[in-house]
């Protein structure tokens, strides 16, 4: 009872304040599937949160819950945040989707956003980043710099986002070297540095000389550095860990998006929508090109510019799939819905996807 009264009192106060024109503090909250200290996916989302604090100062108050397992605990964590009065809550992992839908329904006056999912509602927006744009560019770089024509690709789980990444990488590589090959290892974990290091070592021993990853730790790059080979960073700029090996990194920069959306909540203009932005809007950033000859860097920068301006779309038809069929209209990019549920490889990839 006491709690209800105090919330009611706070709510009344907030209403009174906003009615009088004074801006009540907007509370923006986040839940992460991993620890903030993973220096990878969740870390980057938290960096975005910190940017919101910096940009919007005392107009906003933030909170977060980390290490929320995708399962029974998710709904409770979301509901708890809603009960604490979070005006907008960002659920940053795919597995939070159904819980987000349920909680959004329970609290129609609060706003929610879900990353990398596909279910939305009046008060539940969805957002995603076109990571595959970065993959296309690094595919080109890899094909240019690899002496063996084989790249090692370390991945976690076969979800569409990862498959998109592999395909975009391959398509980019094939523009430079049509016979480029990748060897794929699924480590079945988003981050276990030891396993990722093992996978990198095995791939190098099997003839790959460039390493690409869609897992979160810096271990594969460290192995590359040790063996004098090259690689790409993931989620964050990992140059500190492999100063001589990192060519570039695909950095998730959620800051601009978060600042924009929280500001909309403050201004009262927030509406549900489905956002899928990429390099153009600054959500996907390639860290500075290092350890490569100037002409390769120039080519990569040009490709990135073309993608940013919309001139080039990595998944422009016609694309030949692994099974030989052709998809996409000539000259037109594949529709977003096809990309979001991608479950096939392009021709040239030697691996099988679970059906």
């Amino acid at each position, binding site marked *: 009872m*006491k*709690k*209800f009264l105090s919330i009611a009192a706070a709510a009344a106060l907030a209403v009174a304040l906003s009615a009088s024109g004074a801006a009540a503090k907007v509370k923006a*909250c986040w839940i992460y599937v991993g*620890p*903030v200290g993973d220096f990878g996916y969740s870390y980057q989302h938290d960096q975005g949160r910190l940017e919101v604090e910096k940009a919007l100062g005392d107009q906003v108050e933030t*909170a977060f*819950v*980390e*290490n929320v*397992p*995708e*399962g*029974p*605990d998710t*709904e*409770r*964590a979301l*509901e*708890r*945040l809603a*009960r*604490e009065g979070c005006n907008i809550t960002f659920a940053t992992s*795919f*597995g939070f989707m*159904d819980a987000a839908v349920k909680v959004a329904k329970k609290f129609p006056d609060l706003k929610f956003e879900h990353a990398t999912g*596909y279910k939305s509602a009046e008060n539940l927006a969805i957002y995603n980043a076109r990571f595959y744009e970065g993959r296309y560019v690094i595919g080109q770089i890899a094909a240019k710099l690899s002496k063996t024509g084989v790249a090692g690709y370390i991945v976690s*789980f*076969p*979800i*569409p986002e990862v498959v998109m990444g592999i395909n975009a990488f391959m398509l980019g590589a094939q523009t430079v070297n049509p016979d480029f090959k990748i060897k794929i290892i699924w480590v*079945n974990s988003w981050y276990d540095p030891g396993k990722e290091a093992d996978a990198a070592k095995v791939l190098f021993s099997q003839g790959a000389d460039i390493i690409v990853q869609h897992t979160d730790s810096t271990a594969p790059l460290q192995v590359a550095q040790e063996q004098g080979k090259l690689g790409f960073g993931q989620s964050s700029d990992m140059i500190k860990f492999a100063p001589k090996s990192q060519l570039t990194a695909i950095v998730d920069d959620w800051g601009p998006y978060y600042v924009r959306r929280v500001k909309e909540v403050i201004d009262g203009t927030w509406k549900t929508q489905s956002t899928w932005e990429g390099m153009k809007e600054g959500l996907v950033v390639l860290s500075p090109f290092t350890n490569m000859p100037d002409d390769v860097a120039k080519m990569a920068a040009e490709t990135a510019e073309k993608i940013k301006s919309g001139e080039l779309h990595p998944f422009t038809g016609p694309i030949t799939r692994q099974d030989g069929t052709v998809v996409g209209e000539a000259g037109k990019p594949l529709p977003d819905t096809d990309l*979001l*549920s*991608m*479950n096939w490889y392009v021709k040239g990839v030697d691996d099988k996807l*679970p*059906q």
Partner: protein
Amino acid sequence: MQLLFERRPERSRGLMLLSPVIALLLTALVGAVIFALRGLDPLHALYVYFIEPLTTLWSVEQLLVKAAPLVLIGAGLSIAYIANVWNIGAEGQFTIGAVFGGMLPVLFPDFQSPLVLPLMLIMGLLGGMICGFIPAFLKNRFAANEILTSLMLVYVAGLLLDWLVRGPWRDPHGFNFPKTVTFSGWQMLPTIGTTVHIGVVIALVTALALAFLLDRTIKGFEIRVLGSAPRAGIFAGFSRPRMVMFAFLLSGGLAGLAGICEVASTVGQLQPTISPGYGFTAIIVAFLGRLNPIGVIVSGLILALSYMGGESAQVALGISDKIAKVFQGILLFFILACDTFILYRPRVVSRRAAPELAPAE
């Protein structure tokens, strides 16, 4: 000078009630220090951690829902541990139970009738029993240590679930994401109110039933004797291999039941992660409950409270979830240490007084 504990002639009744209280107080003390070091008001922090989760109806409901699988699995494990059968694989049995039970809604999503749920629960029970059968069989037949076999199967079960939800059982309309179709209608556990599902009732009833089994039946006697005095048990005609099988089937089955209950309620579908480590936490719950099914009810609630408090503290106080884990560890330490006083009496012994026999050369 040496601190020794010597056995009391009988359990100290007073301390049985007092020790958890002392443990909580000690934990609160250490917790207050930790919070103060972090710059928080210790009293407020302790309130958020221990009391606040009990102040709102929603929070209490969540507490019951979180405690239910812990109690269900823990009660089964306590029976197994009394019998000295070390089932460490409850997490895997939980998973396989969820897989078996989930088979019906996934393969026959249109099967809607009052029959579905009981069938799902029975299948879940069966799944857990099958997973528990393997270590028991290997132990009886090959004397293979059950700690290792049951633990290894946890990983295998997890990978099996992963393969199923990414491949054959993937929701065809799920944008190729790793999840099955959502369960609906008769396939979900009914709820009392909006949150508390009958899994809570199942857990409570099971714990009570097991307590009855242990205390009032020949089977219970058999379990206790084979655990504490195996040779006497053999003379009484009880069979150790049969007990191993019984213990694994019971605890495995109950873990499987907990699995399908979780999946048919809060999660609502099969996906790669369906348990935040219930099977392992339940081991702690079993021991904290002093291997007594009624005690397990209490310890399950306490542990669930500590989880709730940890989450609440993260949001309300802004402390990281690592402090919550440290807190839990400290709580457990103090409870274990204070429990000692129930069975043992402390004595400070001076070294000179204790006669040492010279080792025979």
